[in-house]
């Protein structure tokens, strides 16, 4: 058994895997130890051994696939990748197909990684940051896979010239308006900025969220399927979710109207008359409570 210790990045794994392939090391002869694996007595220094020579051809598509799947956090994170690579190089092309035992696991991981990148794009919540030297917007996020570096460019496209950062318990990204900086260990300063108390602006969002919910259609299962529980605590609307559900379930609402509006004094509108429709526009209607309507 060869233990290969590396820093946990795809680039170094790729070098080590290349070397192992050229040495003809089969998957079962290898143990991959990334930065999270505890040090072991039998660790062999990877350096020292002479660089094996030879040529290996692996398509860029397969490398892309492996690099994405490497973002998956979980058991056998690196050994599955090596097994797929090994089998592929041996001529077993089905190793990368979803119908194959290894390929199926590979695709499950790719899907989980894609889904987590999508979660990042969907559920990150930026907050304006007024602290001097801090970026314009900050966010705290806890992704389940290592998707931050590859998936964050999306926000540079969204936010134009604004600067922003996303801090996580592990890594962090900082966009200064021109460049994206990724730190595998998130600086404490970034984490502190990202964990500022909530600002006043969130109240507007919560008002919207509560109102756009239709209590007559309560459906917790579907909701949780799309918005897993682990994200609730970082969303400004998170605390509102159980409250809205219990209000709807309590049956106070038999129709779709938001509870805060139920029973409020309303305004019926008189039927329009022929002549009124052609009324010239008045100058002072904008924003008034009863615009444009014949009384």
């Amino acid at each position, binding site marked *: 058994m060869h233990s290969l210790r590396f820093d946990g990045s795809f680039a170094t794994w790729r070098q080590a895997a290349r070397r192992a392939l050229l040495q003809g090391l089969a998957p079962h002869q290898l143990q991959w130890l990334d930065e999270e694996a505890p040090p072991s007595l039998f660790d062999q220094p990877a350096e020292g051994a002479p660089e094996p020579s030879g040529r290996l051809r692996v398509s860029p598509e397969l490398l892309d696939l492996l690099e994405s799947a490497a973002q998956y956090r979980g058991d056998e994170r690196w050994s599955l990748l090596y097994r797929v690579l090994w089998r592929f190089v041996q001529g077993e092309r089905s190793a990368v197909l*979803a119908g194959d035992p290894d390929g199926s696991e590979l695709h499950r991981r790719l899907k989980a990684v894609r889904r987590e990148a*999508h979660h990042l794009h969907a559920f990150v919540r930026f907050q304006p940051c007024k602290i001097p030297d801090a970026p314009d917007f900050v966010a705290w996020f806890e992704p389940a896979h290592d998707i931050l570096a590859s998936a964050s460019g999306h926000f540079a496209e969204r936010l134009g010239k604004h600067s922003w950062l996303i801090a996580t318990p592990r890594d962090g990204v900082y966009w200064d308006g021109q460049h994206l900086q990724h730190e595998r260990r998130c600086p404490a300063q970034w984490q502190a900025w990202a964990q500022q108390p909530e600002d006043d602006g969130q109240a507007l969002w919560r008002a919207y969220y509560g109102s756009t919910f*239709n209590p007559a259609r309560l459906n917790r299962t579907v909701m949780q399927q799309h918005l897993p529980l682990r994200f609730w605590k970082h969303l400004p609307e998170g605390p509102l979710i159980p409250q*809205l559900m219990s209000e709807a379930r309590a*049956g106070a609402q038999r129709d779709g*109207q*938001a509870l805060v509006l139920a029973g409020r004094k309303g305004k019926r509108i008189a039927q329009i008359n022929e002549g009124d429709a052609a009324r010239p526009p008045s100058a002072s209607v904008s924003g008034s409570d009863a615009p444009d309507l014949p009384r």
Partner: protein
Amino acid sequence: MQLIEKLTILADAAKYDASCASSGAPKRSSKGKDGIGSTNGMGICHSYTPDGRCVALLKILLTNFCLYDCQYCINRRSSDVPRARFTPEEVVTLTLDFYKRNCISGLFLSSGIIRSADYTMEQLIRVAKLLRQEHQFRGYIHLKTIPDAAPELIAEAGLYADRLSVNIELPTETSLVRLAPEKNVGSIHQAMHSIHLGEREAKEERRAPRFAPAGQSTQMIVGADATDDSTILHNAQSLYHDYRLRRVYYSAFSPIPQSPKTVPFEAPPLLREHRLYQADFLMRGYGFSATELLAGPGNLALDIDPKLAWALANRAQFPVDLNRADESLIARVPGIGVLSARRLGALRRERRIRYEDLTRLRCVLEKAKPFIVTQDYRPPRAEHESVVLRQQLRDTPAQMALW
């Protein structure tokens, strides 16, 4: 009135429109540019409300004052609800603020009819124009189109909006006459036609101005009248065909406060709505026709999904040999989707398909089993009658959570 109060009223007023898509827009980016916003064709759901519906756009009305008296609508003029009106600037502020916080991917703006159809449409356009021109907003904009608005206004809306939609509201003209007396099928179709023409011109002529690149959609309310699913699906099919709609949304009629006697005061028919969406998906993505899904008058089965219903009614087509059949036919097998069908195609170019492969592709084997043949598997009960199969395969009768 405070902004937060207006928002509370005008979001409540807008939520009965089911559309929330933020997909289909061309690629736009603000990287290194003034302004904000991007689109890449994919929609993003930024949150979900406890009704299981996604929040992708800020969905609000400009105002819920309305001259019309559509019986199914909470904002009808005879409804006793609080009323409010945003200024265009307020809508712009809210959109930009929520967008920067990453709460939304854009705006879906509609309005009650005030003063006239043209005037209302002009107000909606003004908001979109402000966002696009003054603030260089490149996020998603969906504008509701007022059916009777002038074609020039629809053309102008198409300059700024990614998507336009005119609601067909009810599946038949009779129902529309009865429940929405101020609306008119003719002008609804006319507006859809104008949008369709605008789209076509923009696509065919290189110099033509940009026009609603994410196309148009519509919404049909289900359960406010007695129309059956067959009529609804055939209607949807002609809308897809005639105006190249991207989506038809089905909205189970939700009871509204102080409900008029003309519409039911019952829990929204959620399961029926779900089946209609499934059937609609089969028409858009699987090449099924409305007649295949529902030959005669009537409703879709509630206990089984429409694909299974079709398979049970067409046993002569089955079992399908996964090692030989066309991918399009494989995709018609219950429990096997288009993606799995494509993957089976890729796999069988390498080797023969075995039963195990379906497990790995995460097909719904319970449903697929009676309808397939693989190298190592043949359905033992292929001769079983459809009635018996249906008993075995029906969804657990758990009704969706109601009150």
